[in-house]
C-alpha cells in the first residue's frame, strides 16, 4: 500500500514524520507548482475553487508516483469542501486511476477520526506506537510554525531582502530531516537564533497587516502568490491567527474540552453576522472587527467563487470598526503584477495614514 495526500503549505512534513515512524509508505507529490495547477485546472469543473484544483492536481501527481491509497479531508458544515473528496475520486476514476480513497472527517470525527485512519493505514499498529508517532508529527508542526512566526517579524526589517526566506527554506529542510526530539529542539532554536541575528534596518517599526480569509489560500503560499513574502518585501510585518498547529491544538484537543479560540472571534462578529456561514466567513468578519484597533490594515484572502468569503467581504465593507481591507481573490487567473500593484498601493495608503496620524499626535 502506498499512501498519497494533497499539499497545504508544509503540512506534508509532520505527516511524513508520522507515517515514517509507523512504516507507512507515503508518496509525497511534488510541492505545488505550475504543472500541479495545470493538471488540476484541466480536470476540474471550472467554477470550483483553487483549493479543489490544486489538491486534485496533487492527487493526480501522487497516483503518477504510484500511490494507491489517497487521503483527502472531508466534512459537513464547512463548505463545498465536504464534497471534494467524492468529486475528486470520481474524476480520478474517470481518468483511469485505480486507488482507494480515504475521506478524513475534519468536522465530525476530529481526533478519533484521524487516529482511526492512521490505525488503519499503519496496518493495525499498537496505539502506543500511533500516539507517539502522532506526537512527534505535532512536534514538527509546532517547530515549523514557531519558526515561521519569527520569519514574519524578520522579513520587513532585514537589510538584504530575501535573507529570511532563504533561511526558512533551509529550516524547513532541516526539520524535515531530523528524527528525534532533542535534535528537533536544537534545530528550532538554531534557526530562530539565526533569524534573530539577520542584519536589520531597525529605524522605524514596520506597519502591521493582519492576514485573514479562507484557511487553504491563507496557508498555501502557491495559491496566494506568496502574499506574505511580498508584503515583507514592502516592509510590512504580517500577523495571522491561522496556523495549522493552532488549528490542530484547538480542533483536536481543546475544543472537545470546551475551549474554543474562535469564541472570541465569533463574539466580535456578532453585531454583523450571527452564525456560521460555512468555510471561514464568520471568522473573517470577526477578525476584521478584532484587528481594527490593533493593526494598520488587513489583507483578506479568498478563493474565487468561495461563497462564504464573498459574503464576508460584503459584510466587512460596512462594519463600524474601520480598518483598510484589501481583498485578494485567488485563482489560476491571479497574476503577480496585478497583485503587486494593489499591495503597493495598499501599503502606500497605510504609510500615508500612519504619517498623518503621527503628525496629529
Amino acid at each position, binding site marked *: 500500500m502506498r499512501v498519497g495526500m494533497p499539499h497545504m503549505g508544509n503540512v506534508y512534513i509532520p505527516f511524513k514524520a508520522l507515517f515514517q515512524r509507523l512504516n507507512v509508505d507515503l508518496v509525497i507529490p*511534488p*510541492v505545488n*507548482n*505550475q*504543472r*500541479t495547477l495545470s493538471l488540476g485546472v484541466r480536470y476540474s469543473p471550472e467554477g470550483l475553487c483553487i483549493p479543489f484544483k490544486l489538491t486534485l492536481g496533487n492527487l493526480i501527481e501522487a497516483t503518477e508516483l504510484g500511490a494507491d491509497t489517497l487521503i483527502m479531508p472531508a466534512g459537513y458544515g464547512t463548505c463545498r469542501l465536504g464534497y471534494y473528496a467524492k468529486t475528486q475520486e470520481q474524476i480520478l476514476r474517470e481518468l483511469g486511476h485505480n486507488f482507494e480513497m480515504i475521506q478524513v472527517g475534519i468536522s465530525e470525527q476530529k481526533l478519533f477520526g484521524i487516529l482511526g485512519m492512521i490505525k488503519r493505514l499503519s496496518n493495525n499498529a499498537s496505539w502506543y506506537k500511533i500516539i507517539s508517532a502522532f506526537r512527534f508529527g505535532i512536534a514538527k508542526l509546532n517547530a515549523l510554525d514557531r519558526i515561521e512566526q519569527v520569519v514574519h517579524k524578520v522579513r520587513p526589517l532585514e537589510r538584504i*531582502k*530575501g535573507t529570511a526566506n532563504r533561511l526558512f527554506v533551509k529550516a524547513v529542510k532541516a526539520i524535515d530531516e531530523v528524527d528525534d526530539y532533542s535534535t528537533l529542539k536544537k534545530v528550532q532554536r538554531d534557526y530562530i537564533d539565526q533569524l534573530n541575528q539577520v542584519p536589520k534596518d531597525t529605524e522605524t517599526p514596520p506597519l502591521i497587516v493582519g492576514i485573514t480569509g479562507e484557511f487553504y489560500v491563507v496557508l498555501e503560499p502557491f495559491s496566494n*502568490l*506568496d502574499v506574505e513574502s511580498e508584503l515583507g518585501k514592502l516592509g510590512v510585518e504580517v500577523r495571522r491567527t491561522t496556523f495549522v498547529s493552532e488549528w490542530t491544538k484547538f480542533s483536536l484537543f481543546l475544543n472537545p474540552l470546551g475551549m474554543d479560540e474562535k469564541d472570541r472571534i465569533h463574539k466580535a462578529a456578532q453585531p454583523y453576522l450571527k452564525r456560521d456561514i460555512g468555510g471561514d466567513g464568520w471568522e473573517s468578519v470577526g477578525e476584521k472587527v478584532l484587528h481594527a484597533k490593533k493593526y494598520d490594515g488587513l489583507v483578506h484572502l479568498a478563493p*474565487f467563487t468561495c461563497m462564504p468569503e464573498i459574503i464576508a467581504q*460584503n459584510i466587512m*465593507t*460596512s462594519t463600524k470598526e474601520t480598518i*483598510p481591507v484589501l481583498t485578494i*481573490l485567488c*485563482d489560476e*487567473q491571479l497574476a*503577480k*503584477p496585478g497583485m*503587486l*500593484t*494593489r499591495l*503597493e*498601493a*495598499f501599503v*502606500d*495608503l497605510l504609510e*500615508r*495614514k500612519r504619517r*498623518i496620524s503621527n503628525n496629529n499626535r
Partner: protein
Amino acid sequence: MEAYLGIDVGSVTTKFALLNKYSELITDLYMLTQGKPIEMVQQGLHQIKQQLPKDVDICGVATTGSARYLAGVIVGADLVKNEITSHAVATLQYAPQAQTIIEIGGQDSKIIIIRDGVVIDFGMNTVCAAGTGSFLDHQALRLNMSIEEFSQRALTSKTPVRIAGRCTVFAESDMIHKQQMGHRTEDILYGLCQALVRNYLNNVGLGKEIKPPIVFQGGVAFNQAIVKALQEELGSEIIVPPHHEVMGAIGTALLVHEESLNNSNGSKFKGFGISEITYHTSSFICNACPNQCEIAQLSIDSQILARWGGRCDLWERSPSSQNKEIE
C-alpha cells in the same frame, strides 16, 4: 530650469508629463503603446526632447503604469510607483477638495476614496475588465466608427436602451440583440455607456462611499457620453480635470520631485540619448524548480539590465552576477 519627468506606461497608452519645480506642466505627451512599451518610451523621450526649452535640467524621473518596472530600467528612474498612488497625488494637486476619484483606463478601472486629503480606501477591478476603455474601443470598432464618433453619437440619444452590463461577453450579445431588433445606434451606444457605469459602480465601487467632489480621469474621461452617464447615475457634478489623461504621469513626477528634496544624490536619469539605443528583450523558462517560470530579460548588446517574471527572486537579484551562479 529644474524639471521632473513622469512616465506612465499603460496597457493601451503611454503618457509623459514634464513639470517644473513649481509643479506646473511644461509639456505632456499622450501616445498609443501599441504593444511596444520600449519603443514608445524611446519615441516619447525623443519627442519630449524636441519640445524642450533650452535650459532644462532633468532632476528626477519616475515611472508608473503596468510597465513601470520595464520603463524604469530603461530610463534610469529614481522612483517607480504604482498607478493608484500616482493618480491620487496628481488629483490632489489640481483638486485639493476631491473626495472621490474615478479612474477608467485602457484595461483597468479604479476608485480612490479620499478624506481630508488622504487616501483612505481604493478599489480596482479584479477578475473582470468590463467597463474599461478597451471594451469601448472594441465595440466602436465593431460598429465601424471611431471612439470619438462613438461619444458624439451616444450623446444624441433620447431613449437609451437597457444593455446587460454584468459582463462584456453578455453586454456584447445583448447589444447585437438590440441592434437586430431595430433599435437606433445612438440609443444602443448610450445604453452601453449607462451599462458600463452601472457595472463600474457595482464592481469597483462596491461598498465605497462616493462623496462629491468627484473627479473623473483616465483615457475614458475623454468620452463625454460616459461623463454624462456617470453624472446621471451619481446625481452629482463630475469634474474632469485638464490633462486628465496624463494624471498618472503628473502624479509620479510630483512624487519624484518630493523625493528629490530629501535626496541630494542627483538623478539616475540616463539622458535623452537612450532613445537611440537598441534594447533586446528575450525570455526563457527557468528550470530550477518545477514551477517553470517564464523569465523575461532586457539587455543591451550582451549586457543584461534586468530580469523579472519569476515566482521567487532567483533571477531578479543582481542580474549581471547571476550568469555565473546559474549556468
